[in-house]
């Protein structure tokens, strides 16, 4: 991958900022998401809550299903591959996907190595719980980062934990003397040049979204308050009572997260939210997949 392509791929994430990326399983849902103002959709066969309920091995979606969603909407379409599954990623690149999510929501294909994303022309987004994970994924070629959160739970606590951890570690790195950054890079287990970039710029070199457990307009506003540059919403929309209304409310809440009067209005009469599972009630911790 040329330097130029890497830049263009990071640039696409810049255009998504301030927006909401929604999980969809059918062309109809994709249209609802686009009409509600989603800035992109994530095409997948089963949303995380159903993956969690069904158990078993969860894989890349059928390309025919993804193509159906590409044909239905004009906004960018993303899709997920298993961690380390090089061949699934090649397949998604072959069908001209806009962004690949190398995702812990699916069953990992490799428990040691992530995909060398620098070898691809198509951009990747990856999950991270902390600064070290984020910078390792960026070193491998990720053009966008998101918190892992805990997908399919409707419980925002892990996304909050991951975003706060990352922000705190960025602040700590920024406060170091120049000659202390070498040791910090060693401690974080990341390349020195990326640690230096964060030290000098006070932020990740790519866009950072929140993901995993966002279910309400207030959840989206909370993540923006904590420094997210946009929000992924998975099960939260199409597992709720009135998806179109909830989707539009989350889009507006993400854009105007500081306006509490507006958030109050947006939160009224949204119908039933997804049921949700508390983090201590779940058996599979997806966020622990891939370090």
């Amino acid at each position, binding site marked *: 991958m040329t330097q*130029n392509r890497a*830049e*263009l*791929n*990071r*640039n*696409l*994430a*810049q*255009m*998504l*900022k*301030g*927006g909401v990326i929604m999980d969809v399983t059918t062309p109809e849902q994709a249209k609802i998401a*686009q009409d*509600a*103002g*989603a*800035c*992109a959709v994530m095409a997948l066969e089963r949303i995380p809550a159903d993956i969690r309920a069904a158990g078993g091995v969860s894989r890349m979606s059928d390309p025919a299903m993804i193509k159906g969603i*590409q044909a239905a909407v*004009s*906004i*960018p*379409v993303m899709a997920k591959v298993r961690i380390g599954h090089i061949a699934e990623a090649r397949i998604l*690149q072959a069908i*001209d*996907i*806009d*962004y690949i999510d190398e995702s812990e929501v699916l069953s990992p294909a490799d428990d040691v190595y992530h995909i060398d994303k620098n070898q691809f*022309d*198509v*951009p990747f987004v990856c999950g991270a719980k902390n600064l070290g994970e984020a910078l390792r994924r960026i070193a491998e070629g990720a053009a966008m980062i998101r918190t892992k959160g805990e997908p399919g739970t409707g419980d925002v606590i892990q996304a909050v934990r991951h975003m706060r951890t990352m922000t705190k570690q960025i602040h700590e790195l920024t406060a170091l003397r120049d000659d202390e950054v070498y040791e910090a890079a060693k401690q974080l287990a990341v390349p020195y040049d990326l640690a230096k970039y964060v030290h000098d*710029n006070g*932020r*990740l*070199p*790519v*866009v950072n979204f929140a993901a995993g457990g966002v279910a309400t307009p207030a959840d989206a506003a909370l993540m923006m308050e904590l*420094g997210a*540059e946009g929000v992924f919403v998975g099960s939260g929309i199409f597992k709720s009572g009135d998806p179109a209304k909830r989707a*539009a409310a989350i*889009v*507006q809440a993400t*854009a*105007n997260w*500081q*306006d509490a009067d*507006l958030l109050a209005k947006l939160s009224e009469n949204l119908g039933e939210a997804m049921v949700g599972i508390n983090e201590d009630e779940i058996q599979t911790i997806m966020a622990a997949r891939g370090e």
Partner: protein
Amino acid sequence: MVVAVQYISKEESDDAETAKHGVTGILAVQGAFAEHAAVLDKLGAPWKLLRAASDFDASIDRVILPGGESTTQGKLLRSTGLFAPIAEHIAAGKPVFGTCAGMILLASRLDNDPNVYFGALDATVRRNAYGRQLGSFAATADFGRPGDADYLPDLPLVFIRGPYVVSVGPKADVKTTVDGHPVALRQGNILATAFHPELTGDTRLHELFLSL
């Protein structure tokens, strides 16, 4: 030239708060608005983010419509109430600069989308004209021709799922073409580009806009 991703932690430049006029309002409902604010900071020009209708005050005499998703921005322009003041601003002939999605919002006609937003730019624009993300590219071209007052040679151009202009009416001038497709237009105080000058580090188009 690599330009850092920008995260915005303030709502206006330090000098915008007390300014009575001369402030650039940057539409900030979705997209790469922080990158435009960073360019204006570099040029020392006051700016203010436009998130709600109440942000559009008398100090604002020019408007930037940034890159992002035009369908998302179009919905939020309506729900925030920002559509009317910006439409009035454009109708009054005041300067407006649309980049990528901003060009789509300005166009009078879209050839693959039933929506029309501000409808001020006399041109037909095609969304996602170069295909999906694998069709995104960088190039270099001139803005205008030698001898034009606004001539800018060798501008670096970055296209991200960019639109292009299918046809241009008599009111607008084509300023830049790439492979025969018009990618920059000027119509009086309306400036519209299919590319992203805020991502390249080259500030000349912003300087031209600030001189309008």
